[in-house]
């Protein structure tokens, strides 16, 4: 998106005869945000010794997972060169559905999961048709679908309320065998699915379409199908985000998704995915989202005066990105020298 990024890229490309292999670059964003995440953890643990308790870690993960899933979904759309605002609507809608139609037991959880995945897929597919086949700008099309979803959520549930099934509320926010938080398992599973997906034809096509749709078309890629698939994946992941949000809050709220809108873009950006498309990845976004939630903890533990927390928060975001850029710069110049 930045006007100058491109300039610098060509400068660097021509100045350095060194050829880069794709592997390194594609995962670099994730590595950098990972480093920042670890640094924040160190700060947090130093300030707050109880931070490393199993409970504390589990609750932080539970708290982060919905945003992580939402950001993962958003990444698909951003990679193909677009924005998906429907994230807010789909999360609200899923949350409301799970809370208004709870089905008890593990099987019930599956039924609820199927419901939200179905809704996510349906909205995602609608977005896909609007953007890929009817060629409406993604930000505008998804704004409209977001508003419609919010309306439907309000029709289903007028005010916060409803109950989420016990199984979802307790089992999915607990730990497997009392040691591994379920949230961590889900996050790792998403990361693994992504790693496999990235190497499929559709995964590669996603990067191609995001970088240059015309060239992708000329290379034989079905650009429209690729875009459509990206929105579907995104919708499904938003549905899952709504599902996990319901597990965490154990009630429904017709406006539950609203806070996710800007946050999930921030997570994607922090994770090193470029908004002009074609570079970045889901892993970075997962860590980016986790970083944003961790930041809340760090802010708390450092005890900045409440009115000015925002200043701190903003500065940390900027510094995180600058730090990533600095590390990248250092590694590149060392590579050249």
């Amino acid at each position, binding site marked *: 998106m930045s006007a100058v990024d491109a300039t610098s*890229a*060509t*400068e660097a*490309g*021509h*100045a*350095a*005869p*060194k*050829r*880069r*292999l*794709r*592997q390194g*670059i594609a995962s670099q964003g994730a590595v950098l945000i990972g480093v920042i995440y670890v640094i924040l953890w160190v700060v947090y643990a130093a300030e707050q010794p109880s931070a490393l308790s199993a409970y504390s870690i589990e609750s932080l993960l539970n708290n982060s997972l919905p945003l992580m899933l939402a950001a993962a979904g958003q990444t698909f759309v951003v990679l193909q060169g677009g924005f998906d605002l429907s994230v807010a609507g789909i999360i609200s809608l899923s949350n409301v559905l799970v809370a208004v139609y709870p089905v008890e037991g593990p099987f019930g959880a599956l039924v609820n999961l199927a419901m939200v995945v179905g809704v996510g897929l349906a909205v995602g597919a609608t977005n896909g048709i609007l953007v890929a086949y009817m060629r409406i700008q993604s930000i505008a099309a998804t704004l409209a679908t977001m508003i419609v979803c919010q309306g439907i959520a309000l029709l289903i549930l007028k005010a916060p309320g409803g109950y989420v099934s016990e199984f979802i509320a307790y089992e999915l926010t607990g730990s497997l065998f009392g040691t591994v938080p379920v949230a961590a398992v889900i996050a790792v599973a998403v990361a693994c699915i992504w790693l*496999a*997906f*990235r*190497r*499929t*034809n*559709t*995964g*590669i*096509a996603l*990067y*191609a379409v995001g*970088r*240059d749709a*015309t*060239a*992708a*078309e*000329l*290379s*034989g*890629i*079905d650009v429209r199908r690729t875009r459509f698939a990206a929105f579907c994946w995104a919708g499904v992941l938003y549905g899952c985000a709504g599902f996990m949000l319901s597990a965490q809050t154990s009630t429904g709220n017709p406006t539950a998704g609203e806070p996710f809108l800007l946050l999930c873009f921030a997570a994607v950006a922090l994770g090193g995915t470029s908004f002009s498309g*074609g*570079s970045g990845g889901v892993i970075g976004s997962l860590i980016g989202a986790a970083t944003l939630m961790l930041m809340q903890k760090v802010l708390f533990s450092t005890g900045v005066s409440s009115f000015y927390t925002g200043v701190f928060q903003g500065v940390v975001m900027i510094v995180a990105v600058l730090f990533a850029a600095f590390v990248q710069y250092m590694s590149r110049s060392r590579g050249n020298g």
Partner: protein
Amino acid sequence: MGRDQLLSVTGLAKRYGATVALQSLSMEVAPREVHAILGENGAGKSTLVKILSGVVRPNGGTMRLGGSDYTPHSIVEARRAGVSTAFQELSLLPNLTVAENLLLPNVSGGPLRPSSRGDAIAAARDIFAEFDIDDIDPRWRVEDLSLAEKQRLEITRAFSHKPRLLILDEPTAALPDTTWLFDQIRRLTGDGVAILYISHRLAEVRELCQRATVLRNGVSIGTVDLAGINDDEIFKMMVGRAPEARFPGRAPAAGDRPVVLEGRNLSSGRMRDVSFELRQGEILGVAALEGQGQLELFRALAGLAPATGGDIQVDGSPAALASPHQAMAAGIAYVPEERKVEGVFGGLTAAANVSLPKIGAISRSGILTHAQDAKAIAGPARAVELADRYFGFRMNDLSGGNQQKAVLARALMSGARCLVMFDPTRGVDVGTKQAIYAMMRDFADKGGAILVYSSELPELVNLCDACLVIYGGRVAAEVPRGELSEQYLLTAAHGHVGDEPMKAAS
């Protein structure tokens, strides 16, 4: 004739809104034939290519391939029918690896099957081995390839689909050395492949092709046997008028004039210790094979990648060319190598593209109208033969050659005293090339100075007052006007001066 043709096209037409790109095109291509398409910039050649490869659909006409109706709806369908294409505006994805680009759209062997990186690289290596490429690593990102490497990759990708009909749209525009390409083409035709070959270089066309179809203003004028027609006649078919002298006469040597631009011991990237002097009224050529450091020289002078060593003097005083802005301020205008990336504002009109460097001067207290644009660019546009009808076109809707003309016109427009041109006539039609030569000569005669790199040696030999040959990052030879010959430049460019092989710098 009709029955045994591989491809036959009749009355093909294509409109874009009010614009007619192809009016009526008819032609036939036989198996094993290398068939040329000739025509001015904007005549409709690339449009034909796009139709044949399934990228755009025609508004009228019929196509038959191998005896059956041929109406491809996508590039994949065209490939399946045995037609594959190397496009004029390269269709590679810079953020993917060479291997991935080569195998697209099916890298992994199934839509949901994750690819093993090793398999893809091995497959790419096999393809490279088959087509004699050994200097590109399949694991590299395409972003980091030179333009010529990208061009070879694009061509190899077209080869790799095992076509019956192979379409090459200006494949040599960015290839300084054509031997590899011609060898491959001969091998493929030997295997029964027919090739549609588009190029503005008549010499090449004559070397490769038996027949040519000439297009003018979207109409096929006819198909000719190249053996029975001379260049002037072809030119007349393409343009509709007789050609002028191919190269303009040269002014007397410029030895006593002041030095406008001087480089002393410049280094940067592959370029090592390059010095030169460019005098007023002089056209100084640069000859080099691909990737010998000439690009670094030009980019340093353009302020794009400032030299890491040595210094640059403008009018005898040191100049810091840290950005293109400063280069412009120092009176240097640059014609970039990669038009699509560095030259063209695709969404703006051609007029806006050309007038850009001068809008400050042509505007009236900051206010600018399209009429002012059109008036201001008339001169430069005429100099490069960019027709008025294109002024209002978005650049993306112009043909490749016309885009190049607009980029050239912009450099002229800038009012610089010193033009630094990297392969300025790339993709430009025969007629316009002459206009551009004349323009350059005229520019120099009026007191300007030009540093020009060209991948076409005859251009350098006939146009330049002197020529630098760069090899291995260093100046291998400085050839004064009297000694300029294609043979000599070629030898020097390969690192042989006086039959003595030179040592490469790095």
